[in-house]
């Protein structure tokens, strides 16, 4: 079988390590001997009895939800503009312009945002021209983290939505217009309902990516701004508490899965009611 070597590689490089991690999450942690083999739920219980870690999870969830909502609001007009108002060549160029920030890497993009948001940075200098004085306070704040996150997520949202808008028959919009509907009505009653599956998958993608964000919370949020992915890193690589770090990783994946599936089911049910 031609796919066998690739499957073996993924099995050894990802599936086996994940299985081991799941097993480790049931082990006992001792500060001097590190990991002791056991079968216990104490690491999961620790998470749900410690308000600090619940706070970390809650912050991760609301930051991700907010970032996703902003991406959706900002992404729809851009994706629609690219699908309906731009010629082929211009669109190709704009796609590259949108993709470069996406594929530039988290380290470089985040450093660029640090340059903008810094108290002595670009934005402060710009606002200074209008008489603004004093620190901006955007570095090490949740607002700064959300700004950094949406700049990573927006390209994903725009690309996903754009391909959905392109697949919608233009005649439907023309028909609506010829019957006297305003543009907002056409968007609300025709385009957005038809694009709902794409809106859903774009939002799910953005939400998952921001739930797992690492570089933005670490560099823009700073050492006291805790989100889930940096906490997993801390526990596993720095504290060397593998059982608890493993439990955190699985809690993160489980919560992400439950929320995305839950919202998808809810939205699809609403959608079915609409179309009936």
């Amino acid at each position, binding site marked *: 079988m031609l796919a066998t070597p690739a499957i073996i590689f993924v099995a050894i490089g990802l599936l086996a390590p994940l299985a081991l991690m799941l097993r480790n999450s049931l082990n006992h942690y001792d500060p001097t001997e590190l990991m002791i083999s056991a079968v216990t739920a104490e690491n999961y219980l620790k998470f749900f009895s410690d308000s600090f870690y619940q706070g970390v999870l809650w912050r991760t969830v609301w930051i991700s939800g907010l970032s996703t909502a902003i991406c959706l609001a900002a992404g729809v007009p851009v994706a629609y503009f690219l699908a309906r108002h731009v010629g082929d060549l211009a669109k190709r160029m704009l796609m590259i312009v949108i993709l470069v920030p996406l594929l530039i890497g988290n380290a470089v*993009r985040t*450093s660029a945002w640090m340059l903008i948001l810094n108290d002595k940075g670009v934005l402060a200098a710009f606002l200074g021209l209008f008489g603004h004085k004093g620190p901006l306070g955007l570095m090490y704040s949740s607002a700064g983290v959300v700004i950094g996150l949406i700049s990573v997520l927006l390209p994903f949202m725009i690309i996903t939505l754009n391909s959905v808008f392109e697949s919608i028959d233009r005649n439907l919009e023309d028909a609506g217009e010829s019957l006297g509907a305003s*543009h907002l009505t056409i968007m609300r009653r025709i385009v957005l309902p038809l694009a709902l599956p794409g809106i859903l998958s774009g939002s799910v993608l953005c939400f998952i990516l921001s739930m797992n964000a690492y570089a933005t919370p670490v560099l823009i949020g700073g050492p006291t701004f805790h989100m889930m*992915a940096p906490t997993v890193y801390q526990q596993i690589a720095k504290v060397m508490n593998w059982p608890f770090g493993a439990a955190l990783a699985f809690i993160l994946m489980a919560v992400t899965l439950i929320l995305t599936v839950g919202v998808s089911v809810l939205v699809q049910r609403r959608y079915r009611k609409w179309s009936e």
Partner: protein
Amino acid sequence: MSNRAKSVRLAYTATSILVIGFIVLPLVFIVWMSFFSNKILSFPPEGYTLDWYRRAWEISDFRNGFFLSLRTSLIATCVALGLGLPASFALVRGRFKGRETINTILMSPMIVPGIVGGSALFVFFLEVEFLTGWRIAGSSIGLIIAHSLIALPWMIRLVTTSLISVPPSVEEAARSLGAGPLTVFFRVTLPVIRSGVIAGSLFAFVNSFIDLEKSIFLVGPDSTTLQIALINYLEWNFDSTIGAVATVQIGLITLLLLITDRYAKLSRAF
């Protein structure tokens, strides 16, 4: 065009300029800042210099990191090519049960979050070291394994999309004329899917080059990639050397994307 249509169009254009500007402007500023002659970073610039590029080059973590990243991503792309080409072929042409499952398994490195996959790999490597004494985490082989995992799904995704568009009848014709399976692959299939293979390799390379979340667990004396060197530096310093390194990376990635765009529709990779 009616007045109403014009104002709708204007609203879309204005919003799009604002949003795309929001995505792109930070990169424009960091490129600009890399030429400032200010000793301590501030606005506006006092003058311009190329000195930060020399300084960035003199920081061994950046220089070595750049070459290590290049080498690692190149090897990872080759591994992904060797494993991914046959796998894509099996996924598109094979008729067997469980094809969806196999596709999901092969795409899973892209689905599992980087920090989770990275930490699992890190712990796995250390457990292997306890058992066999073979040190993988912190060595370049560990890094290559992690980066090949990143590269593989991108390769398979782009090669399979281009394979789907080739009708099997082309290969059947060659086979019926007596060509062996390897001849058919190298003389018929590969030339047709060439653009998919090139696009797949470039995407695999770029995504491996910029990886941070998996690599961060595998750093060691000979495995500090450019991205890791960057965030280590950023933790304590913020000056125009960062701008110089960022500018080089922005230039490299933009160039690779422009090349990829010649071979495949970029948005199809996502």
